[in-house]
């Protein structure tokens, strides 16, 4: 392998790429190759709010069409997956500030090396592969949370050929006037607009860092991907890195990427119809505290999601088969490395206090506990 030092700009590798940042750990996007899907590989009928399917990516829509979001095997060479958004109910004339987009939020403490708020603020480059039937102008944006008011920068990109994978590269200047707190809150939100009502694109696009202006966030030329049920978009290979150039995608091992995703979301259960997710101690004849050690240290104390309480049962000591049906589930005295699941059952004198209890699926593959510390 030949290398050429290129002044202060970095190193030119023998594939011709100029890499100005270290090739390991350079990508600030998690799951950029769309291979992690802990929540499942598809969701249908999406018509509002923030929605997760593939890890770390949010699909947001407000009254613009109905969508199916899925992990797709259609991908450019070198990638196995992409995220696909398919419009299933059209809205050709979005109004007001209604819009749809997908996003990834980045934890602020992972952005400290960008030196925002100083004269050394770093230029960053966003690159990704995209494919759609609908050609035209799209918008990618960065929203910086920690300045007051929040600061943004936007850029147009063009999908030139229908149904063809294209690589897009957008470079954003550093923000010497911005602020990124050194904490576990959101620092950046990277947006890709898919369609918007007129109120988000009524002013000239804000292509330099400045205070958030909702009327200048999206290009006035932005296509409306929601205008036909024939419309789709696939994306993969998303990378955000320091420097003025897009370098080859940083391929991380599956285990590395999964661990990074599990800082924000984890799922337990679903491997068999009697899957045991944790053990604990009965606190009374109605309450049991079940301890679950999290797989990674999470960003914050996580929210506990659960399938129907009827999917769960408690096993307790005594004759084999003694069990109690769960009536309620709640997180309690948890932190970002462990969760205590407080389960409530009908009064059961056999359970008593201080007995070893096991929380298991009640004859269903659908029993799941999820832990979310998303930004």
């Amino acid at each position, binding site marked *: 392998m030949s290398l050429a030092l290129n002044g202060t700009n970095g190193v030119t590798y023998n594939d011709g790429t100029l890499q100005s940042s270290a090739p390991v750990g350079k990508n600030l996007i998690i799951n950029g190759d769309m291979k992690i899907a802990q929540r499942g590989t598809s969701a249908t009928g999406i018509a509002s709010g923030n929605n997760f399917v593939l890890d770390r990516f949010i699909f947001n829509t407000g009254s613009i069409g109905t969508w199916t979001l899925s992990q797709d095997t259609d991908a450019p060479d070198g990638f196995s997956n992409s995220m696909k958004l398919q419009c299933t109910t059209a809205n050709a004339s979005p109004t007001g500030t209604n819009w749809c987009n997908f996003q990834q939020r980045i934890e602020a403490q992972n952005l400290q090396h960008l030196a925002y708020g100083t004269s050394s603020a770093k230029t960053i480059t966003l690159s990704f592969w995209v494919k759609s039937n609908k050609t035209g102008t799209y918008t990618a944006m960065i929203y910086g949370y920690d300045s007051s008011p929040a600061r943004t920068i936007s850029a147009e990109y063009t999908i030139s050929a229908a149904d063809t994978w294209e690589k897009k590269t957008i470079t954003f200047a550093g923000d010497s006037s911005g602020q990124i707190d050194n904490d576990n*809150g959101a620092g950046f939100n990277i947006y890709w607009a898919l369609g918007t009502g007129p109120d988000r694109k009524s002013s000239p696009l804000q292509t330099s860092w400045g205070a958030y202006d909702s009327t200048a966030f999206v290009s006035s030329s932005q296509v409306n991907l929601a205008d036909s049920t024939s419309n789709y978009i696939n994306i993969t290979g998303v990378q955000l890195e320091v420097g003025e150039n897009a370098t080859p995608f940083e391929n991380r091992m599956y285990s590395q990427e999964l661990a990074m995703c599990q800082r924000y979301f984890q799922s337990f259960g679903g491997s068999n119809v009697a899957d045991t997710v944790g053990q604990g101690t009965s606190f009374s004849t109605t309450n049991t505290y079940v301890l679950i050690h999290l797989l990674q240290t999470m960003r*914050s*104390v996580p*929210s*506990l999601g*659960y399938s129907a309480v009827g999917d769960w049962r408690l096993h307790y000591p005594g004759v084999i088969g003694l069990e109690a049906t769960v009536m309620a589930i*709640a*997180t309690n005295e948890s932190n970002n490395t462990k969760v205590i699941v*407080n389960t409530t059952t009908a009064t059961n004198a056999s359970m008593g206090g201080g007995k070893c209890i096991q929380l298991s699926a009640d004859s269903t593959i659908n029993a799941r506990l999820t832990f979310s510390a998303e930004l």
Partner: protein
Amino acid sequence: MQYKIINDAYGNVGSIELTKEDNTKISIPLDEANTDYQEFLSWKSEGNEPEPADE
């Protein structure tokens, strides 16, 4: 969407239960870094009150 206070086994506020429009539920910890809890606090600051805990 409905919030409800959930007490722990000692009778103290232990968590917030959110019932979503599709009737799924999540249990929200009292952690200000948790975005679900941030949304609850924002909702409450608008003058809303959660359903009280069961007796």
